[in-house]
């Protein structure tokens, strides 16, 4: 720790030891400026990378080639789409709540990028602010995106948008709890709420130490960021495009960026919490983080290419009946292990034990809990008589 810290330094919680010697750590404003620009640039570039990777990847999963025209191998497709959207007419419905309609895409987009303030992107301590309540900040900010979604659904004065917004709120409120509970297991093991501290604590990646938490977090995160199979908000076959039905041009582009921005943030958080963040041999830290994010994202769109959309009650069933109790049990087990297991090299023994416990719990739940709730059986008249 630096011997004397100014008030601004304390607020930003700059860790000078992680930064190069020439770094102006005593000038928090300069530090903030550099990292704000760098973090947003990182997030935006990753959004474009993710859009490209997903479009090509999903196409290959579906035996297609995907966009390969704009630029070499189609890498400029996102840019072309953006130019098209910029030039399109911005349509606002006559009965829309104009101010809220305008604000909604901004409110939905900004939290996705604000998350990157506390994620160690470029190495040990090389981040905007090493908050000692980083996890709290992340949870508070990431759940704010739903406000934008609800504003959009409300302001559009369109029944489909409103249905989508209602679904969004229900889904995100439900999945926020198992998501936080899953992170709690990690926090118990790491003993800190700072994301940098959590990365430092991972001599063994928490995906191995806390496999059940990793699975629960991945599922809850997919639901939070509306990835298929949880994309009830944008269920094209039911409610057109959901909350952004009435949006066009740049406002729609902002929602698009928000969707992928949340996916980028989710992948970054998963990589930081469960896969060791920037840690890794040979390659520079930021590259390791990008690789891990892409791995997480790959699993996400692999599932997207595979699974059909769930029904509303099935989504709620999974969240409340399976993920929430399992996450609570997982926190209890993690707490007991941290209390009674001697820390040190014997931590490796917890890996098979926790994997076994996780598998056992999932097995028990599969046999005892039904997630199909409210299934409607369609029977013919002859079957009813018999």
């Amino acid at each position, binding site marked *: 720790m630096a011997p004397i810290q100014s008030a601004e330094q304390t607020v930003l919680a700059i860790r000078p030891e992680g930064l190069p010697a020439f770094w102006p750590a005593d000038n928090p404003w300069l530090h903030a400026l550099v990292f704000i620009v760098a973090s947003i640039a990182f997030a935006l570039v990753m959004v474009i990378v993710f859009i490209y990777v997903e479009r090509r990847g999903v196409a*290959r999963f579906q035996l297609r*080639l995907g966009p390969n025209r704009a630029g070499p191998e189609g890498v400029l497709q996102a840019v072309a789409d953006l130019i098209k959207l910029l030039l399109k007419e911005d349509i606002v419905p006559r009965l829309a709540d104009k101010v809220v309609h305008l604000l909604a895409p901004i409110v939905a987009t900004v939290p996705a990028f604000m998350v990157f303030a506390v994620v160690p992107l470029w190495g040990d301590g090389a981040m905007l602010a090493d908050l000692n309540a980083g996890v709290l900040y992340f949870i508070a900010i990431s759940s704010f995106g739903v406000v934008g979604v609800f504003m959009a659904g409300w302001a559009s004065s369109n029944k489909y948008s409103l249905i989508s917004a209602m679904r969004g709120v229900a889904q995100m409120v439900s999945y926020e709890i198992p998501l936080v509970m899953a992170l709690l297991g990690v926090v118990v093991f790491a003993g800190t709420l700072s994301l940098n501290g959590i990365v430092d604590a991972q001599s063994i990646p928490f995906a191995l130490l806390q496999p059940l938490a990793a699975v629960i977090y991945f599922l809850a995160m997919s639901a939070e960021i509306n990835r298929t199979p949880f994309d009830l908000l944008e269920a094209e076959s039911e409610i057109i495009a959901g909350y952004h039905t009435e949006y066009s041009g740049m406002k729609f582009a902002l929602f698009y960026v928000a969707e992928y921005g949340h996916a980028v943030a989710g992948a970054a958080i998963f990589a930081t919490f469960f896969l060791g963040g920037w840690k890794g041999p040979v390659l520079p830290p930021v590259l390791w983080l990008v690789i891990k994010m892409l791995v997480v994202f790959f699993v996400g769109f692999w599932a997207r290419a595979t699974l059909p959309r769930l029904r509303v009650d099935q989504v709620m069933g999974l969240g409340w009946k399976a993920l929430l109790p399992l996450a609570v049990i997982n926190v209890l087990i993690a707490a007991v292990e941290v209390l009674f297991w001697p820390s040190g090299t014997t931590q490796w023994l917890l890996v098979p034990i926790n994997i076994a416990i996780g598998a056992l719990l999932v097995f028990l739940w599969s046999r005892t809990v039904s997630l199909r709730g409210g299934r409607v059986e369609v029977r013919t008249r002859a079957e009813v008589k018999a």
Partner: protein
Amino acid sequence: MKSEPEQKSKRSKDKKRVFGAGIARGLRVTMKGLLGRAITTSYPEHKLVVSKRFRGNEFVWYPARCTGCSTCAKSCPHGNIEVVTRRGNNAYEVEKFEIDTGRCMFCGLCVESCPYDALCLGRGYELAKYRRGDLVLEKEAMQESEKRKPSGYFRPKIEKTLPAQTLLIERAGRKSRKKKESVP
């Protein structure tokens, strides 16, 4: 086909479900798609060989075989074919032979009705023209050339000489059929 006891065991497995087992099976299926090859191609660069009996545009007309009998013109449901003949040296000379492909539905009745195999359908499928008038094919334009090859539709002799079809559906089908054979 799987044998019966295997099917039974699979059914009972489904009853004793474990969360994620079905998802894992589905993920395996899509992973095969990722590792396999795409069944679409980038069109203008990679063109596929169409069916041997493709009823394409660009009729091919053989002036040496045509007697100007106009059976094709009579059989055309739309009356798109116009034939004008002149009495020549012991035979009719075809003065005008035009097909208006703008109205043509490629039913192939003209080809089927030709008693002398003088008219064939073509193998082309890039039909776009800049002007309506360009769609009317004249007799000079309809003769066989390097670019204009006849289709094997209703012409078994021509069909034998044509290359096998490589439509993607067929390529993909061949692949999966092989796999299916190796599974049981």
